[in-house]
């Protein structure tokens, strides 16, 4: 097998064995650890035999609950899961969600049911494949590809993000390298990078185990993390100490380090040992988390009290304060929903700061502590999400397909933008394909970054186009970028839009547990470069410049972008599905995360361009509006006005507080105001409309 050969060549891999440590990496996929779940013992037996014949390491299980506990107990114990759809104790899709969220393993669904809608459900819930019973051995022989693909994607993002900075540090493990060891590579690289900061060799051992399970940064975990960091002080918060303080069994320094990286992005003059890891963030992991988070959000949206709104709010506000462009971005950001409340608040603050040309961001973004403080609201959001999850498993599935690549790219971008805008653009562009995922992902980091930048003051003007680009690869991002980039009103403006957009975008992508994504450290936005996303952005940017027409232009851009990228967007179908499900979910809930909304908006946009075209921006606005509900005082920003119009149009019925103005970025909001506004919004925001025309958000463009 090729892989085996490649594996042998990857000398640098500290991988003892990708498989369960029996030390034979060359023989991939021999020994692939498969968990089979099916209540039918006949099928189970046959599958087991077939898989054994393929030389896989099979564990069979006839109950989903048992399977889940097996997986939980042994996070690193399996490479892939095959599950039946119809099971008496738990729906196969529910299991799929759980696994995706908690363990991030590739899951193959199977069923005797081959009806299209069931297969589609599998797709939207994030299954990496769907087998029709009776399953033939030939079909099972190739399941290893899903494992490799998943790792490759994560690794790829990881690598790309890291390569720019640390290229020389680590041997560039080309992606052509043995896929089978890609996970190892990723881990190895991760660990290597971390070495700088942690100087922990033992981490390597951990990371070398390819099957490192992704840590699910649940709300609680994140809170612990934040508490630990705060306790230590940003400067002294090294992963090792954080880990000790957190005292979470099973958590590794590496996990903490990567999480920390997210938060550290944008730290002014970050310690060198910390900076590098930013790029090397375990983006794939984050991306996955975002995805799942997003799904959960969508599922949970019903009950969420205006979380989306709150998200929207800040972004909206930010937009408002910024030039017209920003508005859209904010919406985009808000749409992503990922944008943690804090981020939004921060953004708003930033925006506020910008509008007033304050150098010191009113928002406490100055140091990362702020991030943490913001985190909390976010955390609550996440919690809300999590609760919601229970309620809507189905809905969440829609977003399941969120591109995982987004995270890495987004992170990468954020990092970059934090550091240097130019670079990011490049990177971002490279990641362009990721589009939706990037969008979402980027959104988050961006928002964070903006926040940080804001605090830093002046340099924010340029939005990290790269950040936005990835996100917008589908076009939306570019729009956002354009918005951001163009709006050079204040740093904040640009910044806001970008971050907003990213938060919006990200929202949908983020998973529940992926708070980190949200808390993506806001690097100095100062580094954000103007949009150069794809040229399209440029145009848009210029067109965006119009004041009041900001949004309008954004719409145009979105539409344009949408058109440009339509081919990239596979959202059409997914979006539809998503939208449909979202709608179903959302009916009464305003908790739809902005990101979700965005998605929905996009999907719906795709469905009915004509309606949506204009409403894309609206959708964005709406999202932003809703989130920004109450948050953004009406600064009378033209954007606000525009937003109002749009949002009114789009979501009049939904937004409790339709008037854009109100939701737009409050120019003079103090940090506290924003925060409280955001939080308030969370409670009271009406359901965000689902028809965000997030064209460029290919929901299903995920390399699941």
């Amino acid at each position, binding site marked *: 097998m090729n892989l085996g050969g490649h594996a042998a060549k990857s000398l640098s891999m500290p991988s003892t064995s990708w498989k369960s440590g029996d030390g034979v990496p060359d023989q991939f996929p021999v020994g692939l650890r498969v968990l089979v779940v099916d*209540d*039918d*013992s*006949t*099928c189970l*037996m*046959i599958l087991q*035999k*077939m898989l054994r*014949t393929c030389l896989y390491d099979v564990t069979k299980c006839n109950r989903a609950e048992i399977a889940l506990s097996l997986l939980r107990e042994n996070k690193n114990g399996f490479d892939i899961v095959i599950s*039946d759809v*119809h099971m*008496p104790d738990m729906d196969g899709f529910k299991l799929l969600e759980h696994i995706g969220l908690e363990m991030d393993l590739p899951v193959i669904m199977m*069923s*005797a*049911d081959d009806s299209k809608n069931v297969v589609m459900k599998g797709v939207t819930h994030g299954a990496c494949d769907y087998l029709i*019973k*009776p*399953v*033939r*051995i030939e079909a099972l022989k190739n399941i290893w590809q899903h494992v490799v693909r998943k790792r490759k994607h994560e690794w790829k993002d990881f690598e790309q993000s890291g390569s720019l900075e640390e290229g020389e540090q680590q041997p560039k493990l080309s992606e052509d390298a043995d896929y089978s060891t890609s996970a190892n590579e990723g881990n190895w690289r991760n660990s290597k990078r971390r070495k700088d900061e942690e100087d922990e060799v033992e981490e390597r051992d951990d990371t070398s185990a390819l099957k490192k399970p992704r840590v699910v940064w649940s709300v609680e975990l994140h809170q612990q993390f934040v508490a630990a960091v705060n306790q230590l002080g940003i400067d002294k918060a090294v992963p090792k100490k954080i880990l000790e303080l957190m005292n979470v069994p099973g958590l590794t320094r590496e996990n903490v380090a990567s999480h920390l990286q997210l938060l550290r992005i944008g730290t002014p003059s970050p310690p060198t040992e910390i900076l590098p890891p930013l790029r090397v963030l375990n983006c794939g992991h984050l991306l996955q988390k975002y995805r799942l988070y997003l799904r959960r959000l969508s599922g949970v949206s019903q009950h969420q009290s205006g979380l989306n709104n709150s998200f929207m709010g800040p972004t909206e506000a930010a937009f408002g304060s910024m030039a017209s462009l920003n508005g859209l971005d904010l919406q985009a950001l808000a749409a992503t929903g990922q944008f943690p409340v804090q981020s939004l608040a921060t953004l708003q603050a930033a925006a506020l700061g910008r509008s007033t040309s304050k150098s010191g961001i009113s928002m406490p973004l100055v140091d990362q502590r702020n991030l943490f403080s913001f985190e909390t609201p976010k955390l609550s959001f996440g919690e809300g999400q999590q609760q919601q999850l229970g309620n809507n498993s189905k809905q969440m599935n829609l977003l399941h397909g969120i591109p995982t690549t987004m995270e890495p790219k987004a992170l990468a971008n954020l990092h970059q933008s934090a550091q240097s805008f130019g670079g990011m653009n490049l990177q971002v562009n490279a990641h362009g394909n990721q589009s939706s995922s990037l969008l979402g992902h980027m959104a988050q980091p961006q928002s964070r970054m903006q926040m940080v930048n804001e605090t830093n003051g002046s340099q924010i003007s340029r939005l990290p186009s790269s950040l936005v680009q990835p996100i917008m690869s589908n076009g939306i991002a570019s729009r956002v970028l354009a918005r951001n980039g163009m709006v050079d009103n204040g740093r904040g403006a640009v910044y806001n839009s970008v971050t907003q957009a990213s938060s919006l975008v990200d929202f949908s992508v983020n998973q529940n547990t992926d708070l980190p994504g949200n808390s993506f450290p806001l690097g100095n936005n100062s580094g954000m470069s103007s949009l150069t996303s794809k040229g399209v952005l440029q145009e848009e940017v210029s067109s965006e410049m119009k004041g009041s027409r900001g949004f309008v232009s954004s719409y145009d851009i979105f539409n344009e972008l949408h058109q440009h990228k339509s081919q990239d967007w596979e959202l059409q179908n997914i979006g539809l599905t998503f939208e449909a499900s979202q709608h179903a979910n959302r009916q009464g809930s305003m908790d739809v995360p902005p990101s979700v909304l965005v998605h929905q908006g996009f999907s719906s946009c795709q469905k009915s361009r004509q309606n949506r075209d204009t409403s894309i921006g609206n959708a964005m606005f709406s999202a932003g509006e809703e989130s920004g509900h109450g948050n953004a005082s009406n600064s009378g920003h033209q954007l606000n006005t525009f937003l109002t119009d749009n949002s009114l149009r789009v979501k009049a019925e939904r937004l409790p507080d339709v008037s854009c103005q109100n939701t737009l970025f409050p120019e003079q909001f103090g940090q506290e105001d924003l925060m409280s506004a955001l939080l308030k919004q969370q409670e009271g925001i009406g359901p965000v409309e689902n028809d965000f025309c997030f064209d460029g958000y290919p929901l299903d463009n995920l390399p699941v």
Partner: protein
Amino acid sequence: MEVVQLQTRFVEYTASLFREGYLDAQFTQLQQLQDESNPDFVVEVVSLFFEDSERLLNDLTRALNQQSVDFKKVDANVHQLKGSSSSIGAQRIKNACITFRNFCDEQNIEASLRCLQQVKQEYSLVKNKLDTLFRLEQQIVAAGGSIPVME
């Protein structure tokens, strides 16, 4: 009986089962899975199938004879039977299940009962056939021969 004779009978009998639609290619897959490490694999799986099926058929009979029929449950059972029968290659059972499910969708008790009968019948037939087949195998092995592998 001579080994060769037994083997010939075995081959012919198997072929007829395929021809008459009792078994399909999936059964061949099962046979191909059987190897030295697992010489009784097919027999084991099929036995497991018989057990599960009988349980399912009993559940179905009970469910359809309730005052108010829970079609969701009926459908789930039929779906399961369909899955397992297709997994071992019991084609006619599978087909009968498909028809059965259609009537379940329509919530047609009469037709469902008829389908249930049909499924039970197919099940009995296949069970007999496979039992015969396995007996042949045992005889071959007892006579010192090896079971011919069907292509």
